[in-house]
């Protein structure tokens, strides 16, 4: 990691420390020199690391709202998990699960559609205006309609996630299938390949690079879709956690959720 530039990790740690320090104590300076620290640094808006840590312990069922530790062996932790049904861990699980289903359904349907339209001049000519029209709708704008139609359960989140992912993957696959080198197709055809064999052994392998390129953004898009769906209406999930904290005016709760999302995003992108 540090191979090329010695001290990289040291610099990274230093930057983190500085940012955290300003976050934690920056606003204390405001009382003395108001001009030096913008009002936006008010912990009411952005919380502060120590409060976020407390918020994490509370939302994660590690501590009670009175500040006492929930014991693991005496069952307090378990009771908290049951009583506080949108605790951090269950919320993360629900969001992750819906992201996964949104991602899988979006990628597979986008891939199949892109392949079919990419290889059929006729179909793509017919569908072109519709695709352009639907694509120019900001997908997020559909989230309230989807929640209305599918309810506040998991399915509305999966559909929101799907609709965001499917176009991304569709367009990439479509572009990939369009740019398949015709010489490869001809070579396969002259060796006796049927149209189906050409699709399987030439079109799909040469399109894969395009599809893979769309997977990393697709996973972030899937997560965005789920969170927005949860904002509109949900019983569980990290998006729901953010909305609840916002309603209570608790910046720390929102920050805990955002940081968890960041970790989830990094881990998921790394998996792809």
């Amino acid at each position: 990691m540090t191979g090329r530039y010695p001290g990289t990790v040291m610099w990274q740690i230093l930057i983190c420390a500085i940012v955290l320090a300003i976050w934690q104590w920056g606003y204390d300076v405001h009382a003395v020199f108001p001009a030096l620290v913008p009002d936006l640094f008010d912990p009411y808006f952005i919380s502060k690391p120590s409060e976020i840590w407390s918020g994490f312990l509370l939302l994660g069922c590690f501590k009670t709202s009175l500040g006492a530790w929930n014991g693991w062996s005496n069952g307090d932790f378990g009771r908290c998990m049951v009583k506080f049904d949108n605790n951090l861990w269950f919320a993360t699980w629900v969001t992750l699960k819906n992201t996964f289903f949104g991602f899988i359904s979006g990628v597979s349907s986008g891939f199949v559609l892109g392949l079919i339209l990419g290889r059929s001049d006729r179909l793509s000519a017919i569908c072109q205006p519709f695709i352009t029209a639907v694509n120019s709708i900001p997908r997020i704008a559909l989230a309230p309609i989807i929640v209305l139609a599918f309810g506040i359960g998991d399915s509305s989140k999966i559909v929101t996630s799907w609709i965001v992912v499917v176009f991304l993957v569709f367009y990439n696959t479509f572009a990939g299938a369009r740019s398949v080198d015709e010489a490869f197709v001809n070579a396969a055809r002259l060796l006796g390949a049927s149209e189906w064999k050409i699709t399987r052994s030439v079109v799909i392998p040469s399109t894969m690079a395009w599809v893979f390129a769309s997977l990393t953004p697709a996973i972030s898009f899937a997560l965005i879709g789920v969170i927005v769906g949860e904002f509109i209406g949900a019983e569980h999930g990290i998006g729901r956690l953010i909305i609840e904290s916002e309603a209570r005016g608790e910046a720390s709760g929102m920050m805990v959720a955002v940081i968890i999302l960041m970790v989830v995003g990094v881990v998921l992108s790394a998996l792809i």
Partner: protein
Amino acid sequence: MTPILTEKYNRELGTVTDGAGNPGQIRVDVRALNKSFLLGSRVIEAVKDVSFTIAEGEFVALLGPSGSGKSTVLNMIATLLKPTSGTILIDGEPVVHQKARREVGYVFQRDTLFPWRTVAENIGYGLELSGVSKAERAERVATCIQQAGLSGFADAYPSSLSGGMRQRAALMRTLVVEPEILLMDEPFGALDTHTKLDMHDVLLKIWEREKQTVLFVTHDLSEALTLADRIILFSARPGRIKESFEINLPRPRDAVTLRETPRYAELFSHVWHSLGEEFIKGRTP
């Protein structure tokens, strides 16, 4: 219709006689072929009234300046292009657009090896398509790899091979399914002189053993003389057959030493004169 061909050709019998008067089965029969393209609003005549036949086991070169429509003719025979008018018969049966024939093999101008398959997987592709068992496939591919001098590169991907090696692998991908008729579209055009000579020897060795019926498109006269039994010379656009030459150089031929023989020099200057006229005509003023 070109008189040189018709005098030896008996369509009713479907046979031709070679230089020595031996009858041979007609494999490829091209009749009054025309092809025009639309370039914007202009109609470009690429091929005009081209007729010829190729007999079983004959090696024919289509020679001409670039843009003379020789590749277009080849691609129409290969069913990649649809003729504007005219007929193409292979073994007496008309070809159908985009319907490949098992007995016809095609070698492209630039190698079209699939970059996502190894050399062995590329060569085995045609066998895979025709459902040859895995064991037999491995055996036939191994023989081809050895023949092409690609031993040790079976599991390499095309991107790590030199141009000559790639074209050898591409040639083997076509030959492994044992086509009786070979269509070759300037297959060695992109190679340097030395690699080209190597490829000529590889091809000559294979052809002298298997005696496929070959139609070889090239703009390189030395290449045509080295390989072919007959050269069909195309004129500058619109492409039509200008002349036909019997190349009665002795076989087996050696690509390198053949060029030192007086007969080669004689044929070269003979054909060159006619080809040169077309080069000059084809020049844009």
